């Protein structure tokens, strides 16, 4: 199996379970900053991550891309530092730094020798409050982001198609807008939109500090008190309530045509429940469902049926990531072999799904996923940064440390009936979007006629 093929298909694999055998210590400072310390003393390295509970879905309507724009500008000047000095200082200390934005969070991180943590905290605390935005920095950085969107999205037909699909998936929720922003709105973003996100959300009571590596929890706490402790909480932090989805009552079908598409494929998304604090069982069952349907190119239901037995597809997969603040999606995808139409591939997919909904998973399928997820806990311990990301993502998306701790056990106790029931609930055509990605619609019609002859 060649893996690059799978990259062409939009799907997010289920997040593997997390081991709790590593040493994790948590605190909350008086100003509301959550602190998570993950110890790993194998190498003299530390990663500091500061996660803000604000992402693209928290942006004002019409200002898509503002959270991500702010993320870029956070590397510019503060009251005491020049533009670029933050990263230059990290580099001068032999470290690397960067940041990322999603629908639900914005996170900044530095990876340095463990004894450099105090300086990293000092700088990260500084830019929580003291950003100094200039018009020329804003103007230049907007051009950088236009090029970023050109590179990630406009140059990539798969990304353009995915953007259309997500927009159709959400009728009302701001998850429908791309994290990087629509091009016309990026072009209109300025100081006001960015400032609003910064002033409203960049506060200790809206942030999670994750420190992972060769550190002692007491020392991290003392440093956090020293550097972040003096920053006042934001008293008017808005409650994080986004416009929610109404009942979805009609299947949506999209056909995206782009001459740059060489390999037609189809993708389908269903609106799906996410992991909620104290209520992760359905998400655990859906995690199994994604694994059983598409987690392995060889032994999963879709791969076996479409790639091996019927021999009509190059690839078939399923994806679900339950870590999300609001409703997430469950996705399926099929890349048909040459000569097989997308319509035929979709019909075959639906037949296989119908059969699965009848029988549910076998005990052997359940056992295999259980084994995989259990081992994933062991392998996950090799990357303390990976662990740091999981805590940051979970805590910025409505979960608690207890939820993260409970997740591996919840995964191990999922039953075949729960998976079958979760499948029956999630595969509701009225909550689905089906996307066909083709080089041109004319060709699709032609190949359909050919196939029906």
């Amino acid at each position, binding site marked *: *199996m060649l893996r*690059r*093929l799978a990259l062409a298909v939009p799907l997010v694999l289920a997040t593997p379970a997390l081991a709790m055998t590593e040493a994790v210590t948590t605190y909350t400072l008086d100003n509301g900053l959550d602190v998570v310390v993950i110890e790993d003393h194998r190498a003299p390295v530390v990663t500091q991550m500061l996660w803000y509970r604000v992402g693209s879905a928290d942006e004002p309507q019409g200002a898509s891309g503002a959270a991500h724009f702010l993320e870029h500008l956070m590397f510019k000047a503060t009251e005491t*530092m020049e533009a670029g000095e933050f990263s230059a*200082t990290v580099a001068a200390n032999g470290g690397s730094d960067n940041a*990322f934005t999603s629908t639900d969070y914005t996170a900044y991180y530095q990876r340095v020798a463990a004894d450099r943590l105090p300086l990293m905290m000092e700088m990260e605390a500084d830019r929580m409050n003291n950003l100094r935005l200039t018009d020329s920095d804003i103007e230049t950085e907007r051009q950088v*982001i*236009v*090029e970023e969107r050109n590179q990630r999205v406009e140059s990539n037909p798969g990304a353009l198609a995915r953007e259309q699909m997500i927009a159709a998936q959400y009728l009302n929720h701001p998850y429908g807008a791309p994290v990087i922003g629509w091009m016309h709105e990026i072009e209109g973003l300025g100081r006001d939109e960015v400032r609003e996100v910064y002033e409203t959300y960049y506060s200790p009571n809206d942030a999670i500090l994750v420190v992972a590596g060769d550190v002692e929890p007491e020392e991290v706490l003392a440093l956090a008190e020293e550097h972040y402790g003096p920053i006042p909480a934001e008293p008017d932090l808005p409650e994080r309530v986004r416009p929610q989805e109404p009942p979805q009552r009609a299947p949506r079908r999209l056909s995206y045509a782009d001459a740059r598409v060489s390999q037609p494929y189809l993708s389908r998304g269903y609106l799906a429940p996410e992991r909620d604090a104290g209520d992760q069982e359905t998400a655990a069952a859906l995690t199994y469902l994604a694994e059983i349907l598409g987690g392995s190119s060889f032994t999963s239901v879709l791969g076996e049926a479409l790639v091996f037995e019927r021999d009509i597809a190059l690839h078939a997969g399923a994806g679900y990531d339950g870590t999300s603040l609001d409703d997430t999606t469950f996705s399926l995808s099929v890349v048909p072999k040459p000569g097989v139409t997308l319509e035929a591939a979709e019909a075959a997919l639906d037949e296989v799904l119908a059969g699965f909904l009848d029988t549910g998973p076998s005990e052997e399928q359940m056992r295999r996923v259980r084994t995989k997820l259990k081992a994933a806990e062991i392998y996950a311990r090799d990357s303390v940064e990976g662990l740091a990301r999981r805590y940051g993502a979970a805590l910025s998306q409505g979960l608690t440390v207890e939820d993260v701790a409970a997740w591996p056990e919840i995964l191990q106790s999922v039953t075949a009936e729960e998976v079958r029931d979760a499948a029956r609930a999630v595969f509701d055509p009225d909550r689905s979007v089906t996307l066909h990605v083709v080089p041109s619609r004319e060709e699709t019609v032609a190949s359909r006629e050919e196939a029906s002859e």
Partner: protein
Amino acid sequence: MIRILSLTLAFCAGIAGATHAEVAIEIEEVTSPGGITAWLVEDHSIPFTALELRFEGGTSLDAPESLGAVNLMTGLLEEGAGDMEAREFQAAREDLAARFSFDVGSDTLSVSARMLSENRDAAVELLREALVAPRFDPVAIERVRGQVQSILAQDAQNPRRLASRAFYEAAFGDHPYGRPDNGTSESVAALTREDLLAAHEAALTRGGVHVGAVGDITPEELGALLDELLGDLPESGPELPGHVDFGLAGGVEVIDYPTPQSVALFGQPGLEREDEDFFAAYVLNHILGGGGFESRLMTEVREKRGLTYGISTDLVPLQNAEFWIGSVASANDRMATAIEVIRDEWARIAREGVTQDELDAAKTYLTGEYPLRFDGNGQIAGILVGMQVTGLPQSYVTERNSFIEAVTLEEVNRVAAERVDPQALHFVVVGRPEGLGEADAPRVTLPEVVVPEVVVPEVALEPQ
């Protein structure tokens, strides 16, 4: 929010007396009873072992008449072995929760394995079947051939792939580096089972393998593992290809492709890994375009002018060729300006060299960053095996920073003057850039996957 706080920040820009982390691993050379050697770092804190194998040769072993054979063969290693067809093999692997991956590049074929301590023997036995006794079932061949053809078709529509194919083809001509790693759609269509058997025989040999192991395993256990895993492979394979000069002269080549953002690769001759000026050039490259936000190119092209999201350069020492390569992407109406800025920076660094401050900052970064790489079994195993492929001694991990420290301003600036050559800088641009002269006719060359590509991460998140 009320911002009443005023923090006093005390950054020392020079970071005088900075004490960086040091690499603290012990590498042991293990020789199996059967005479196979490996480098081991024992660490029993997590109950699994990371094993990295590199077989010398890679796609360079493709015969001119069977391009893509080694790549297709590599894709088939996990598609059935011994008495197990593909699905049986994978079910057995999943039952053990072992992770195997197989990949191939122009110099090496790589095998990565992660195996739990509780069932390591069984996992090794399974991996041995894949390496020694792959089945190459006709049905599996057709399945993976279809996947390769699909990838080739996608590459034909990918500006970055088109640029790198054109770049390597022009730079290396008939040498294997100039040929498509994955083959062409015609060559892949024509590959036979015999071609794959021959590729397997040539590409996986005991004499050509390097091994790095890290984790919950003792030297004795590793010795036995090596014989079990690799003992039945052929002793040696065909002769490897020889050295080739970087054959591109200065200039700009435009390949027409309808896309809103042009992609450019640019390069010039480089330095061999053994060259006494290599470390000076390595530091120089870091200052010019080496990855971080502080490089001159990042500052001039992105930070000051907003012409791109990212630009970087790399000093590439392959086994048989050396060159400088960089990449940038800019909107069609801005690419010409980006190229002008890059050329100016190339000329400026050759003419004026770098400053002491730039050199100091680069050294602090490079020496500080190195130990941070050693943070996980998988990471370390990859470093161990990479060192062996490059021919570095074990002591390199502790000595490497002193090589960086020893580089002087005079050396860097001499190397800049002698080796950086704006006249020799060659650009391959794919897109519809404005103001770069007439585009060549639309190319119908087939898509191919190539040697080290400057990879742009494609993730759901948006790194800055």
